[in-house]
Structures are given as C-alpha cells and as structure tokens.
C-alpha cells in the first residue's frame, strides 16, 4: 500500500466550491413554500413569566403560527440531559419554550412562523409578555455569595456539582515543601463566533411520514436519534443533514437547542417547510458560550523549581442550565497537569449556575483555563526563585522514555488519563530555536534602549484528543472507478473531504480527487457521535483507513479471479489493479467493482457479499494526547496599553500528520481565537446579567491586522493507539495563548513586575495594572 498522499500538502477538495460561492449552507437550502421563523426571547435575566398574549401577533397578515409553551405538549418538557455524571446533582436543562420562568436574557419564550423573517420579527414586536423580574446573578462571585438570588429555586447556593480528583497526597507535599506560591486566576467568558450563525430548516412529508432536517450542527446523528425519539418517529424515517457548516468550534454540538425542536415541530404542524436562521445579535445570547472560571491555585516546589504538588479549587460558570454536563471543568482539571511530572495534585471544582447563556465547550473546552493556571503558577515560581522560565519547565517535563505516562486522573471520556506518546523536550527546544530564545535578552535590551518595551513568552501544554466512543466509515468503489467515503462525523472546515480522501486514496491506489467524501448526512451514514474534542481525524480517519483496507483486500480477492493470479500478488495503483511485476496484466478499479457485483450466476463465497464496499468502526480505548509549545514576541506601549504581537511560533506534535496544510490552517485559526481571548474578546454584562456586547462593534474579534503570521514547526511522535498513528489537532492553536501572552506582557514590562492573573486583558486594563504597579514600592 502506498503512502503517497498521507502526509502530503494536498490542496483541498472542498475549496473550489466553497471559494466560488457554490457551497451549500443551511440558508442556501431551497425548500419550496418555505416559511420563516423568528424567536421571541426574554429581555430579563431572571424573571417569572406571568402571561403571554399572542393575539395581536397571530392576527398580523402573513403570520402562519405563534407557538408558546402550552402549544408544545410533551415537547415542552425539559430537553435531554446530554452527559450525566454522578457529581452533577442538579442536571438542569431548559424547555424548548419557557413555561413560567426565564433564567437568562435570550431564553426563548415564543416561536413565530410567517411568510418572511421581516413579518416574523414584526409579529414578535406585537407579542405582549408580562414578566415579574427577579434579582439576577451575573457573575460567579455573585452566584456563590451569601444571600445570592437563586437561578433555580431548588438549587441552594447555585451549586449544581462538586467534584474532586486527587493524585498522591497534596497536603503532605505542601506541608514539607520549601516554597509555596498561591494565586487567584480569573478567566472570562468567550463566544466562539463562527462565521455562520446557527440555522435549522425542516421539511415534513406527511404522506410518507418522513422528516428531513438541515441543521448547522456538529453532530447530526445524535440530533436525528433524539428527534426521532421525541417526535415518535422511526429513526429510519428521519434524516438530518449538516451541509456545509461555516465553523462550529464547539457550541454547535448540543442536543438540543430549542430551535432544533421547534423548527421540525412547526413544519409538521403546518405542513410547510420551515426555516430559522439565527441572526448575529441573537447568536450572542442564544448560542452557548464558555471559559468563565475562577481558580484559587497554588504550587509547591523545591529549591530548583521541581514541582512537588499543585492544588486548584475553582468555580466554573455553567450559565443558566447545564445540559452538556461537566465536560468543560473536567477537561480543565485534567489538562492542567500538562507535560509536567506532578506527583501530588488536587483538583476540585464547583459548577455554578448564573443567569447567563448556557455553557458548553468552545474550542479548548476548559484546556485554555487549565493551561493558564499551570503556566502562570510556573511563571510565578520561576520569578520568585530566580530561575529562567524555560528552564523551570524543562526541569519538570515528562521525559520521552516515560511513555505511556499515567497522570493518575480520569479524563472526560471516563478512561484513565494516560499520555500515549510524546517528546516534550524536543518540542520545547524547537520552539526556543524558532523564536531564537538564546538571543532574546540581547534583543530585548537593544529594544529597551530605543524606548520600546518588547516581551517574550513561552508556554507548554498537552492536549487530549481522539476520544471515543467510536466513529464509522463506509468505503465504496463504483463501476466508474470513483471512490465514495461516507462517515458519521460532520465537517465545519476541518478539511475532512480531503483528509479522508487521502487516506482512502492511499489504500486504493487512486488520486484523492477521485474520492468523494460525504459527512454529516444521516441518510448516507447513520452511526456516529459527532465532530468535537479534536477527534474527527483520529477516530473517523482511522475508521476510514480500516474500511478502505478492507475494500483493498476485497479488490485483490475479486481481481484475483479476473487476472487469474493469487490475491497476494495483486497491486493497486493509479486507478488500476494489476499483477505485481506485470503491469500489462491489469484492469481498472472500476472494472473490478463491476465484476464484484454479478448480475447472474453464483458468487464466490469468500467474497462475503457483492461490491467493493466495506463498513468499519474504530473505537479507541482512550484518547490520544497531542502536545505543543507556543512562543511569542510582543510589544507593549506602556502609555496607552496597546499591545502588538510581533511574532508567534507554534511547535506542535499530533503524531503522524495527514495533511500539513490543513493542520497549519487549524493551528492558525486557533491562534487567532486565542489572541481574541487574550486581548480582545470580552462578553460584558451588567450586574443584572444584561448582556452589553451583542454586536461585533463591542465584542471584538481580532482581524487579519491584529494577528501576525504564525510560524509553525512540526514534531511527530506517532500514537500507538491507532493504526494510522495520528492524534487530533483541532484545538492546538487556541490552548496556551492566554498564558503565553500574559507571560510576554509581564516580560515586556519586567521592571514593573506586573502580575497578570486574568484574561482577557485590554489597553484599559493594562493601563490600570501599570498604574498600580508604579504606585506600589
């Protein structure tokens, strides 16, 4: 089998259509007679819903229906609990429409369907809702404070879960440690901001009793299964398609968002297709967010900076409901140890309700927070002990011979956290080389002499990827010679249509251009869990490899008959199937496919069925662990607090790389989002949890002018956990950015000994820190 395409920078199969406006996103789906929906949302963060009067709205010309909770029947029950956990005592979920209480600004209260979105919004204006506003909880500190208002009446202190993981004996370690440093870290909320907002379109064929749904989701199969159950339909008769999706980043994997229920419900009731496209302002309240945590953390080290123990007790903001469970705080807890040897570790969190939009993973899913805590603790220790910050890291790194390395914790997939492979020192060395760390002190001095404050930052992390439970793939060769791959994951820009094609192409000896990949369509493949947690390539990719290998073997078996040679001597290459060493004795792959599907006569038993087709599943026993090191150089204007990122380096190890160009793209995008979380993106709320930044005028995404070119270095330590030796990389770019920027800013203003324990920063905040630092002795 060749490996001609695996590892090559193949240009993407999906690009010609996407770049020429021929993509198909949910809003592009043409449904004859489609009606348009709008959602009336609560303007209060916490209130009793006393009454809704929809008569004037229903009377408006062009309005087809106005639904409130009472119209939904059992569909109005609380939505499913996605990921239960024994520690999640109060697993609260919202209803598709609020019944008698609203708990965050944006919570859906009524659903309007009309001939156009314009009319639907006009109708929303005419719905009169009577609220009895209640005091709201706008922050973690407020939520756990004495006499805090309750987000849920039966949840005391707003704490829905309390969970601790321990390794070793942290108390003893701290008791005997020569040095202990304590910090309080505050990380703020962020919104993933995909270029395409959410959207759902549904069409109900009453005659055939079939439902078709287009949904900008990262997990169409669970949506299909859930909808079938809720609507009382056979799974076979529900098709969910995630067409082209303009970015997912985590918040598009949910089950369910209210609109994912309301749109199909309305379509079935009205007998007309219905479409709902989220607008950007809605998106800021109606789509999940993440990142808000407060950590009280401490580190115990010896005189050389070797870690003796780490402890963190943190609060995790869950928002108003918690359908997605404890994934994010568990991931934060288990990412914190990173590439370091930490013999004693205590990680305890409380998940807390607040009257804000719900929280579910956003690229990083808790890893940025964990890494921020660990890296900042190490920076503190380094500063206090007078040890170079890269040296203190080097002293604590897990060494290449220590794999597989058991961290001693349970990861988000409920399996032991065991690092499969890696070469952490090599990644660190490579990053330091790329940023020229050796020459840094001289460069910094020279810049200072010119009145410029430049700083350098270096941060390390380990990234859990490729978790189960499973994914599957079907590979089929058609008589034309075209290869088709279908898998259950969805695609939101990860290049699956190319990466999976490369894998199949190598196995079957064809060009990736002759491989068509279908993702995200339950009608094409009905088993799978979705694209999230950096698992698409690893899990689905390996399933594709297994299925393609099986098709390859079947090809040799069938071709053996055609070419009258033993299967072991049959080769595949350039679209042909031939006898090794005798290229003249060849048939095309398509001819073999035709031969594999006889119309008459007996079929050889060893074929085990017709066609060149195989379905295989890959179920990893645990996740595969990628790692990386980021380094940057920044310039700070101390008078205005302005920050410029001059250089940004990423050295990344995700095992064997399918397509370096796709990987680079993933990393660059992640870095941009990370810079957003470090210096630009802040979701502001007032003290009654009113969102104050619901447009891009106020929620600032870094533009191309703010993000420098990202210089990328690769290291490859293959994973022993899967046949392809690959690991995930989807979140690599974003994970350590807030940590590395904080370190670099402190370095730039080193004489001031700034103490940065929060993210994001801003010019305003930086000035405050500078002024405070100048005041203190």
């Amino acid at each position: 089998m060749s490996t001609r395409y695996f590892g090559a920078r193949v240009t993407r199969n999906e690009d010609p259509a996407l770049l020429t406006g021929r993509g198909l996103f949910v809003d592009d789906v043409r449904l004859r007679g489609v009606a348009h929906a709008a959602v009336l949302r609560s303007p209060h963060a916490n209130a009793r819903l006393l009454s809704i009067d929809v008569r004037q709205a229903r009377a408006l010309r062009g309005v087809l229906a106005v639904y409130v909770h009472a119209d939904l029947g059992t569909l109005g029950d609380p939505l499913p609990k996605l990921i239960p956990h024994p520690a999640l005592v109060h697993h609260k979920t919202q209803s598709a429409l609020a019944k008698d209480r609203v708990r965050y600004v944006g919570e859906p209260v009524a659903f309007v369907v009309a001939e156009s979105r314009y009319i639907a919004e006009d109708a929303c204006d005419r719905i009169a809702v009577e609220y009895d506003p209640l005091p709201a909880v706008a922050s973690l500190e407020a939520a756990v404070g004495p006499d805090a208002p309750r987000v849920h009446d039966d949840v005391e202190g707003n704490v829905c879960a309390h969970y601790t993981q321990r390794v070793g004996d942290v108390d003893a370690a701290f008791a005997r440690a020569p040095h202990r440093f304590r910090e309080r870290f505050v990380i703020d909320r962020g919104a993933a901001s995909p270029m395409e907002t959410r959207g759902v379109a549904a069409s109900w064929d009453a005659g055939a009793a079939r439902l078709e749904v287009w949904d900008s989701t990262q997990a169409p199969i669970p949506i299909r299964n859930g909808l079938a159950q809720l609507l009382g339909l056979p799974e076979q008769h529900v098709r969910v398609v995630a067409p082209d999706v303009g970015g997912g980043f985590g918040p598009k994997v949910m089950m369910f968002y209210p609109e994912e229920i309301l749109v199909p419900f309305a379509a079935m009731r009205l007998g007309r297709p219905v479409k709902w496209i989220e607008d950007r302002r809605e998106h800021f309240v109606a789509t999940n967010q993440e990142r808000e945590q407060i950590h009280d953390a401490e580190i115990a080290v010896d005189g050389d900076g070797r870690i003796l123990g780490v402890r963190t007790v943190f609060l995790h903001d869950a928002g108003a409901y918690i359908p997605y469970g404890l994934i994010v705080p568990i991931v934060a807890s288990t990412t914190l140890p990173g590439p370091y040897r930490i013999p004693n570790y205590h990680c305890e969190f409380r998940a807390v309700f607040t009257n804000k939009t719900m929280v579910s993973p956003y690229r990083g899913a808790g890893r940025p927070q964990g890494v921020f805590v660990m890296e900042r603790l190490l920076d503190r220790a380094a500063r206090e002990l007078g040890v170079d910050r890269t040296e203190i890291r080097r002293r604590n790194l897990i060494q290449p011979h220590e794999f597989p390395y058991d961290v001693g914790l349970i990861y988000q997939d409920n399996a032991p956290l065991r690092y499969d492979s890696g070469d952490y020192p090599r990644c660190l060395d490579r990053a330091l080389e790329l940023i020229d760390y050796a020459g840094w002190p001289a460069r910094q001095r020279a810049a200072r002499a010119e009145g410029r404050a430049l700083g350098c930052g270096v941060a390390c992390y380990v990234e859990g990827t490729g978790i189960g439970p499973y994914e599957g793939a079907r590979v089929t060769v058609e008589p034309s010679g075209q290869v088709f791959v279908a898998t259950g994951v969805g695609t939101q820009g990860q290049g699956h249509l190319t990466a999976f094609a490369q894998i199949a192409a190598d196995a079957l000896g064809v060009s990736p251009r002759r491989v068509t990949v279908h993702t995200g369509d339950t009608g094409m493949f009905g088993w799978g869990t979705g694209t999230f947690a950096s698992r698409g390539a690893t899990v689905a990719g390996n399933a594709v490899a297994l299925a393609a290998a099986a098709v390859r073997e079947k090809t040799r078996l069938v071709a053996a008959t055609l070419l009258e040679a033993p299967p072991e001597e049959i080769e595949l290459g350039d679209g042909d199937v031939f006898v090794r060493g005798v290229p003249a004795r060849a048939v095309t792959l398509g001819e073999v496919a035709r031969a594999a599907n006889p119309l008459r006569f007996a079929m050889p038993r060893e074929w085990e069925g017709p066609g060149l087709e195989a379905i295989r599943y890959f179920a990893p026993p645990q996740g595969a662990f990628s790692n990386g090191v980021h380094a940057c150089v920044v310039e700070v204007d101390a008078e205005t607090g302005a920050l410029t990122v001059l250089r940004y380096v990423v050295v990344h190890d995700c095992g064997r790389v399918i397509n370096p160009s796709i990987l680079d793209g993933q990393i660059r995008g992640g870095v941009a989002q990370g810079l957003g979380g470090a210096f630009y993106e802040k979701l502001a709320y007032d003290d009654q949890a009113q969102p104050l930044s619901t447009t891009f005028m106020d929620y600032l995404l870094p533009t191309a002018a703010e993000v420098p070119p990202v210089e990328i270095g690769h290291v490859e330590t293959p994973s022993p956990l899967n046949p392809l030796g690959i690991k995930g990389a989807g979140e690599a770019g974003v994970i350590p950015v807030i940590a590395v920027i904080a370190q670099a800013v402190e370095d730039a203003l080193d004489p001031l000994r700034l103490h940065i324990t929060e993210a994001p920063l801003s010019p305003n905040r930086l000035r405050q820190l500078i002024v405070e630092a100048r005041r203190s002795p």
Partner: protein
Amino acid sequence: MKLEGTQTLPATVETVWKSINDPETLRRCTPGLKELSETGPDAYAATLTVGIAAVKGTYKGTLTLSEKQPTTHLKIILEGTGGPGFMKGEGIVDLEPQGEGTLVKWTGDVQVGGLMAGVGQRMLGGVGKMLIGQFFKCLEQHLGTDA
C-alpha cells in the same frame, strides 16, 4: 449603570421641592414623556419615547415618588417596558440650600435591558447623564413660574 451629578438652581429649597413634586413639572420636564396620568398618591402611569436622534424606544410603565423628606430628600422611580426592552431608573435627589439658591445632588441607578443594552453600550452612560441634565435644565427654566 450608576450616574451622579450636581446642579445649582436659582431658587429656594422650598420652591425647588414644590416644583419637583408637581406633576405638571414632571409632565413638562421628563425627557420623552408622552403621557402621565395619576393612579394614586405620588404614583403615575407613564408612556415615554426616549432615545437619541434616530435611536428611540417607546416604553410604557410607571413613575413613583417616595422617601419624601420635604425640602431635602426624594426618590424617583421611573420604569417601563417596550419594544426595545425595558428600562428602570431609580434616582435619589438631595437638596441643600446654597446661598440664595439650591444645590441639587442626584444619584441614579439606571438599568436598561434588551436591545438598547446589548447594542448601545458606547453611549448609554453619556446619554443617560445628558437626559437627566435636560430634566434639570427644564426645571430651572420653569422655576418661579409655578410658585
């Protein structure tokens, strides 16, 4: 949103007190007030269209006066809901004689919800202060005419 300010008015505390408590003054000087009808002692139903330039919202709600300590202290609560969301303003007004006139010290806690809050952040504080300034300017203009 917390706002505060001071204003000097060329009239005695008694005159100023009387003016502020007079529904006619409230009707005339509350920015954007379109309707004001008494529903009880010191309580009114109100409709106001408030905003700046083209950006306006109509709110229906109530205006109440409370915590009255004649000639020295007063609380005004104005709240309403409308298309653009809701608004609630709680103002504390303290009066002190200053020479021949009155020093007015006011503090306000304004809560804005819905559309205006999510989108208008850049200007809400400044506009709020400005509207309150308009109230006092109008009050000043009509002092003495109601005496």
